[in-house]
């Protein structure tokens, strides 16, 4: 008779707590999946803006006359709107302001038979790292400018 009384007693607090714990544990991955989706859209938006900044920089370097394109590595501090590419050229950077991006340009010469045939342009855009973290994400675009003379 004692056994019958015990089984008819209903759900105990411990059972309810176990059920709630299981429900919470199962809902965590679902919440994570939804959050990842929202974060994914944010990343796409940031990458689109960085890609636009990279094209902006690459296009103006590609449109400069071959002789006015300096060779070397140029850091963000040297790439300023309205400032010349470097001291050897009058061509100026035209940069749209974006405090969240770090720009870097590498230009090297490709020679054949002693004559510079191409200039290789590499544009790298990095995101300003969050405090205490290293900048990992970046967008890189490369192109060749031919010497037509």
């Amino acid at each position: 008779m004692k056994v019958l009384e015990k089984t008819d007693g209903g759900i105990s607090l411990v059972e309810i707590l176990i059920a709630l714990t299981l429900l919470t544990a199962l809902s965590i991955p679902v919440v994570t999946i939804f959050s990842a989706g929202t974060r994914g859209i944010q990343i796409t938006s940031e990458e689109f803006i960085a890609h636009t900044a990279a094209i902006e920089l690459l296009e103006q370097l590609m449109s400069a006359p071959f002789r006015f394109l300096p060779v070397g590595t140029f850091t963000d501090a040297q790439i300023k709107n309205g400032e010349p590419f470097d001291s050897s050229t009058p061509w100026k950077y035209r940069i749209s302001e974006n405090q969240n991006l770090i720009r870097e340009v590498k230009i090297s010469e490709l020679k054949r038979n002693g004559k510079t045939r191409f200039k290789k342009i590499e544009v790298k855009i990095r995101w300003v790292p969050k405090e205490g973290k290293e900048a990992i994400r970046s967008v890189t675009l490369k192109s060749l400018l031919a010497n037509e003379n």
Partner: protein
Amino acid sequence: MKIEQKKQEKNAGFTLVEVLVVIGIASTIIGILSALLSHFYRGFAKGEESGILLQESGMFLATLRNDLINAALGKNSQKEQWSKVLQSTQDTLSFSVYCDTDGNVEPVIYLIDGKSVKRLQGSKKSKTLINGNLKSLNWRVHSEEFKGPALGTKQIWIDLDLTLAGKEKPGLKAKPLRIRTKMFPTRLIKQMNG
């Protein structure tokens, strides 16, 4: 008899306290679930809106960039006219692009029509690039003729400031997408400096 009476008492149903506890737990779970669902719904709606804005701005920038690559002086145009090749007003941006292999050009016009942006080329049907999501669009044509060692060389570019905002929905405010960039008609610059 005593045992049967006791069993009947046990099977009589739930007590008020039990029902209240169940209602309390059920309300808590339903409350948490509905808050989560509403959060997810808003996240989805915002994501969808952001996706549309990204797609439209991407399409607009890619089309304009592609047209600018093909922007050129016509066969019969004088090089001195270079600064007039790209024309901008508050609502329009116009220039000529190559339309065949013989070097002929035809006009392309980008037109702000309320909250939309349309592209017209020659006699072709107009194409809507931004459909009802435009908040603001400024395009200014700049040009510079260099002096000193680069005497006579010219640079021309478009300063673009585009802001798209999704359609307002009750309880949902999508983040506007702002893109500021400069565009360079590479071929035209080469043609001017060639």
